[in-house]
Structure formats: C-alpha cells, structure tokens
C-alpha cells in the first residue's frame, strides 16, 4: 500500500509536469473503483460511466490544485461525489426511493447471487448520505478522516451516518445473513 501511494505520488508529479501518459496510468488505476462507487451511488451504469469520465476530466484540469498528492484518492472521490450529487440533484424527482420494493423474505438458504441481490436491495433502501458512507467505508476502505474530506463534513457526522446505515443493513439483511450462516434450508 505504501509502495502504491509512492507510485501514485510519482505519477501525479509527472502528470503535473505535462506527462500525459502518467495521468493515463492514474486513470487506468482508479477508473474501476470510481465507476463502482458511482454505480452504487446513482444506480445507473451509463450515468456512472459519464460521471466517471467527468470526474477524471475535472481531476486532470485541477491537478495543480491538489495540495497533498498523498491524499489523491480522497481528493478524486471528492470530485466524484460532487459530480454524482450534482446529477442526483438535477434528477431528484426521478430518483426518489419511495417506491422501492421491500426485500423479499430471505428465510431460506441463499445462493450467492440471491444474497448479492438482497445486499443491493438493502443498499438502495438507505438514504443517499447513508449509502455513500457505506460505499466509502465498506467497499472503498477509506478511513473516517478521509471520508470526512470526501463528504466535506465532520468525522462525527460520518460515523453517525455510517453507524445508522449499518444498523439498518444488519436489520434488513438479518434473515438472509443468519439463515445463510446457519445453513437453514
């Protein structure tokens, strides 16, 4: 991980000096994570791809404004967050989760695909703030202080959103998760 961070720093330094290939390498290194983060956030593949594109374009245009290259990932996710929320705000009426169906009764033994669908459904039932906190922590592995930078809020707010989301997820997934853990058929 330390080696990887050093490599990113090096690539950023080169990209700042106009080395396009260095930035291309950064894009190829981060595009999958950014895309998946955005995909779970906006729940639409084309939108996620478009926002990913915009994120890397804005990052390239503003690379000189990045104060600490060691915090490139948080900075990049911050840009992605802003782009995603810009889109979500524009499409708010279409994006309400009121009509989201409740998860089925996952009482029996679950196949990985079924469990995957159950998790996806449970994530969609969270508020946008809560879901994003889960995505950044559970799926992207950011620390609380990095999440605070990305979400532009205090660490206490980050923890509050995340813990509330985890409580909801645990409750929602309990039937499925514990049936799987016990091997109930």
């Amino acid at each position, binding site marked *: 991980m330390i080696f990887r961070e050093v490599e990113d720093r090096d690539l950023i330094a080169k990209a700042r000096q106009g080395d396009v290939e260095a930035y291309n390498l950064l894009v190829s290194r981060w595009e999958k994570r950014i895309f998946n983060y955005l995909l779970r956030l906006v729940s639409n593949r084309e939108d996620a791809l478009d926002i990913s594109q915009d994120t890397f374009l804005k990052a390239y245009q503003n690379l000189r404004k990045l104060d600490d290259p060691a915090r490139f990932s948080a900075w990049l996710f911050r840009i992605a967050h802003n782009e995603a929320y810009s889109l979500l705000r524009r499409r708010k009426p279409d994006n309400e989760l009121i009509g989201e169906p409740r998860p089925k009764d996952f009482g029996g033994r679950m196949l990985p695909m079924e469990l*995957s669908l159950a998790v996806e459904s449970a994530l969609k039932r969270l508020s946008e703030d809560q879901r994003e906190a889960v995505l950044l922590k559970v*799926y992207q592995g950011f620390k609380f202080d990095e999440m605070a930078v990305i979400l532009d809020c205090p660490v206490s707010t980050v923890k509050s959103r995340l813990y509330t989301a*985890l409580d909801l997820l*645990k409750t929602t997934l309990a039937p499925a998760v514990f049936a799987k853990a016990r091997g109930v058929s």
Partner: protein
Amino acid sequence: MSCKLEDARPDWKAYTLGELDAPARREAEAHAAACSACQEEAAGWRVTLDAMAVLKEEELPRRIAFVSDKVFEPTWWQRLTQGFLRPSFAAAGVIAAAILVHAFVRPAGAPVNLSPQMSASAIEERITAQVTAQVAERLRAEMAAAVNTAVTKAVADTEKRDDQRTASLLAATERRYADAADYLNKQVTHMYALNTGAGVR
C-alpha cells in the same frame, strides 16, 4: 444477555471496520473473551459485513477516455491563452507564411477545399500540402522551359557551327578542285603542244 459495561462497552462496529487502534483493539478482544453478549455482537457485525462483501465490483462497460483522447483536448481559446508565446507561435508563423505563399502561387481557379469543421492543424496540413504541390508544379514547368531554351540554343549553335564548317570545307574543296583543273588543263595543253610540235620548237 447483556454486557455489564453497558454504554462503556467496546465499539464493535469500529472494531469490525478496522478503525480501532492497537491498544483499543486488544482491550476489546480481552473484554469479549469474557463477555458472551459482546462476542455475539462482534460476530453479528462480522457476518453482516461478510455478506455485504458478496457484492462484487463490476467491470467498466467501456474504458474511460484518456487525456490523449479528443475529449481532453483544450479548446481553441485555452490553446490561445496557454500557448501564445510558446513554440506554437512559431508554428502559427509558418502557417501565416504558408497562407501568404499559397495566395501568391495559387491559380485563380484552384480554391483550397476547407470546411468550418476542420481543426487548425488539419487546415495547416491541407494548405501546406496544396502550396507544396503548386510550388513543385511551377518549379517543374520553369525547369522544363529553361532546359528547352538551353537545348534549343545549343542545337542552333551546333547547327550554325556545322554550317560554317561545311561552307568552309566546300570552299576549300572548290578551290582545290579549281586548282587541280587548272593544273590538269595546263598539263593537257603542254602535252598537246609537245605532240603537235606547235609552239614547242
């Protein structure tokens, strides 16, 4: 079953998420060893997070356009403001010179085929190619004319020299022929005189 520490019990969410530092982690584990309620809570969070991990990352449907792609190219005004005094200024000079040369050498009936959608570099290439072709064509024509003139002059000079030489040779031959005829005539006259005795005695 409940934990006797109540509100002071370890933060099992933070523990499972890896947010506790080493001392807090050891303390939590020591407590859980003797607390079945906390063991159950920690296990519950572990199972929940393991279940969430089944959601796999998806592959991108297509690659993100890199900065070398068209989409990342700066707009015309960015190029203008960022690169005005850089080497591209020299390139602009070359383009201007090419346009001037082109205007000078371009025949009236041969307009450059440009469309508003073409980029500056494409226009430069198109103009440069056309100017180069026309200059080359003109050079070829001028070279051919010069060569023709030189050859014609050389041929004329040669023919003139040949004519003069022929005339000179002819005159010399005529002179030799006249001399020989005169000599022969004198010899015949002399022999006739000897044979007839006329005027010889």
